C-alpha cells in the first residue's frame, strides 16, 4: 500500500487558495465601484468574520448558540466607546486598531459569560445562551449611559492626523481596513481548525463522553473555543462600529443572533467555507433583497425551512457534492436535469411570489388601489384571473419540479454508485 501523503501545514494549493482570496478582497471594490457596492462589500467582510466565529461554536463544536450577537454587539459598543475616547484624546489608540478593542471586549465577555454557558452542552447550552442574550438586550435598555438608549452611541472615525493620507473618511478606505481584518481573521480561524484544540473541539461535538476518557476536560475545550469565538465576534462588531459610526441596541438583539444562526446554516456549517457563503447571502438579503420586497423575511423563512429539510449541509455541501461528480467527469450527464430543475423552480417561484406579493399588497397597500407591479407585470388583486394565474404557475412549477426531480434522483443515484465503485477500484489498485 502506498504511504499516505503527509499533510503539510502549508502546501502549494493552499497558498494559491489564500492568494486568490486576498486578490478577491483587493479587487472587489474596483469591480463594484458604486457607493452601494462598497457598502455591501464592507458589510460582507464584517459578516464573514461573524459567521465564521459563530461556526466555530455551531459547526465545529456542536454548540447551538442563540446569543452570538451578545459578543459581536458588545464588541461594537466597546469599539465605539474606544473610538470616542480616542477622538477626545483620552485614549492613545489609532483608528485602525479600534476593532481590536472590540475583539478584546468580545473576548472579555466570552470569558465572563462563557464560564456559565459552556458548563453545559446540548439543549441546556442552547437555552442558557438564549436567556443570556435576552438578559443583555434588556440591560441595553436599562443602562443608557453605556448603550446610548434609543438613539444608540455614535462616533466619528475620521482621524485628524492622517497617516499617509489615510483618514478613514472615504468608505473605500474603511473597506480596505475591513478587508485586511477579514483576511487575517479568516486565515487565523482556518488555522485554528488544524490545531489540537480545534480537532478536540470536533471530538467534543461528536462524542463528549469519549473525550473525557482520553484525558480531556470537555468543559475546558468548549470554554476555550468559546473565548476564541468571542474574540473574533468582537472584531467583527468593532469593524461594524467603525463602518457605520453608530451602534444601537439591536446589535445585541435576538434578531441578530438568529441571523447568524440561519445564514451560517444556509451557507453550510459542516464546511469551513460554508459560513463565508452564508455571510455573503446574509448581506445580500438584508441590504438588497429587503429593498426589493416587503415579504423578504417570509421568503427567507421558507428558504431556511427547505434547506433544513432537504439540504442539511447547506450550499457548501451542494457545491462539494457537485465538485465530486465533476471530478469523476460525470457532471455533464446531469446538465439537462439541472436545466429542467432550474426552469421548474423559476416557474414555481414566480407563481409563489406573485401570490405572496398580492397577499402583502392586499394587507398593507390596499389603500393604494388594487394594482401592483410585479416583475414588470401589472397584477390586479381584485381579479380572479390574476390569482388563478399565479396559483396555476405555482402548481405547474411544483408539478414539473417533481417530475424532473424524480429523473434527476435516479441519475444522481446511479452516478454515485459508479463513483463509489470507481473509488473502491482505485483503493484496490493501490
Amino acid at each position, binding site marked *: 500500500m502506498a504511504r499516505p501523503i503527509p499533510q503539510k501545514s502549508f502546501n502549494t494549493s493552499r497558498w494559491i487558495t489564500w492568494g486568490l482570496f486576498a486578490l478577491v478582497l483587493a479587487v472587489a471594490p474596483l469591480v463594484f465601484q458604486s457607493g452601494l457596492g462598497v457598502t455591501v462589500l464592507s458589510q460582507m467582510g464584517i459578516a464573514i468574520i461573524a459567521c465564521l466565529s459563530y461556526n466555530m461554536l455551531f459547526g465545529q463544536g456542536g454548540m447551538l448558540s442563540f446569543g452570538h450577537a451578545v459578543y459581536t454587539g458588545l464588541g461594537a459598543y466597546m469599539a465605539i466607546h474606544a473610538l470616542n475616547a480616542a477622538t477626545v484624546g483620552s485614549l492613545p489608540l489609532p483608528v485602525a486598531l479600534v476593532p481590536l478593542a472590540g475583539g478584546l471586549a468580545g473576548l472579555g465577555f466570552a470569558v465572563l459569560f462563557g464560564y456559565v454557558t459552556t458548563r453545559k452542552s446540548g439543549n441546556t447550552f442552547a437555552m442558557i445562551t438564549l436567556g443570556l442574550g435576552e438578559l443583555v438586550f434588556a440591560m441595553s435598555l436599562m443602562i443608557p449611559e453605556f448603550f446610548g438608549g434609543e438613539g444608540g452611541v455614535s462616533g466619528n472615525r475620521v482621524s485628524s492626523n492622517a497617516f499617509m493620507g489615510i483618514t478613514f473618511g472615504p468608505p473605500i478606505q474603511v473597506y480596505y481596513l475591513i478587508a485586511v481584518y477579514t483576511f487575517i481573521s479568516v486565515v487565523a480561524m482556518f488555522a*485554528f481548525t488544524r490545531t489540537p484544540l480545534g480537532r478536540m473541539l470536533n471530538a467534543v461535538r461528536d462524542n463528549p463522553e469519549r473525550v473525557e476518557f482520553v484525558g480531556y476536560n470537555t468543559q475546558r475545550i468548549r470554554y476555550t473555543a468559546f473565548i476564541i469565538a468571542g474574540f473574533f465576534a468582537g472584531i467583527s462588531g468593532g469593524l461594524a462600529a467603525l463602518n457605520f459610526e453608530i451602534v444601537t441596541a439591536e446589535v445585541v438583539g435576538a434578531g441578530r443572533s438568529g441571523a447568524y444562526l440561519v445564514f451560517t446554516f444556509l451557507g453550510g456549517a459542516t464546511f469551513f467555507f460554508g459560513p463565508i457563503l452564508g455571510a455573503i447571502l446574509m448581506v445580500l438579503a438584508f441590504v438588497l433583497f429587503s429593498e426589493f420586497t416587503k415579504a423578504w423575511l417570509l421568503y427567507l423563512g421558507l428558504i431556511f425551512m427547505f434547506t433544513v429539510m432537504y439540504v442539511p449541509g447547506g450550499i457548501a455541501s451542494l457545491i462539494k457534492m457537485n465538485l465530486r461528480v465533476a471530478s469523476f467527469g460525470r457532471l455533464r450527464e446531469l446538465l439537462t436535469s439541472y436545466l429542467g430543475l432550474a426552469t421548474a423552480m423559476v416557474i414555481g417561484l414566480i407563481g409563489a411570489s406573485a401570490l405572496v406579493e398580492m397577499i402583502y399588497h392586499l394587507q398593507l397597500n390596499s389603500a393604494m388601489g388594487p394594482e401592483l407591479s410585479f416583475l414588470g407585470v401589472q397584477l390586479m388583486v381584485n381579479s380572479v384571473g390574476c390569482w388563478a394565474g399565479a396559483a396555476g404557475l405555482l402548481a405547474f412549477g411544483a408539478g414539473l419540479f417533481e417530475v424532473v426531480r424524480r429523473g434527476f434522483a435516479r441519475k444522481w443515484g446511479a452516478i454515485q454508485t459508479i463513483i463509489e465503485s470507481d473509488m473502491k477500484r482505485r483503493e484496490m489498485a493501490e
Partner: protein
Amino acid sequence: MNALELKGLRKSFGKTEIIRGVDLAVKAGERIGVIGPNGAGKSTLFNLISGRLEPTSGEVLLNGKRIDGLKPFEINRLGLSRSFQITNIFPKLSVFENLRCGVLWSLGYKYTFLKFLADLDDANDRAEQLMEMIKLDKKRDVLAMNLTYAEQRALEIGITIAGGANVVLLDEPTAGMSRSETTRFISLIKEVTMGKTLLTVEHDMGVVFGLADKIAVVVYGEVLAFDTPEAVRANARVQEAYLGSSVADAQAGGH
C-alpha cells in the same frame, strides 16, 4: 504494589444497592476476566473504577493512589483507560483522526491552538502505528461511522490504548460479534494490551478462560470468587450460582 485495588466498594441508586461491598486486588500485568450474569453489576463496577459514577462508599486505588471521586479525565491522565459496551468513537472523524485524538493528551499537547496538528510528528507517528496495530491502516481516511461493526470495535480498542494507559478496562469488547470474529479479536486484544494490566468483561466463557490469568465472578453486586480459571471452574459455589446454569444462555445471547 497492586495496579488496581478496590476496598469495600459500594454503590446505591436510590434505595437499591447495586454494588454491595467489593474488594479486589489486581497486580500489575495481570489479565482479569470479569464474568457474571446480566445485571450482576459488572458494568457498574467499571463505571465506578473509571470515574463515570461515584461510589457511595469505599475506595478505588490506582497504583496505590486513591482515585474515587476524581473525574474521568483525571483518572485517565493517571494511566487508566477504558472501552465501552456500546461502541463509543468519534463518528464524523476519520480513523486516523480518532486515534490521534486518543494520543494528543498523553503527548502533552493539551489545549494548545498555537501548533499545527500536521507538524506534531510524534502524535502522527503514534497514530499511524496504532492504526497498523489494530489493522485499520487501509481505512486511514474513512469516517468512523462508515466502518463495519467489527472495525468500529477495533477502533474503540485503539482509542482506548492510544494514550498509553497501563490499566485497561474493556467492557464486553466482543459483544455482538460472530464466533470467528471473536477469536480473531481476542488475539488482537492480547497483542495490543501486552504487558498492561487488563480487566475485561466477557460473556463468552471459552474466550474468557483462554484470555485471563484470573477470573472474578460477580454475582448480585458481590465478588463471589476471584481465582485462576481452573479454580473458578471447580468452585462449587460458582457452579451453583452461575456457571452450571447460565453458560449456555450467556453464550447464546450475549447482551
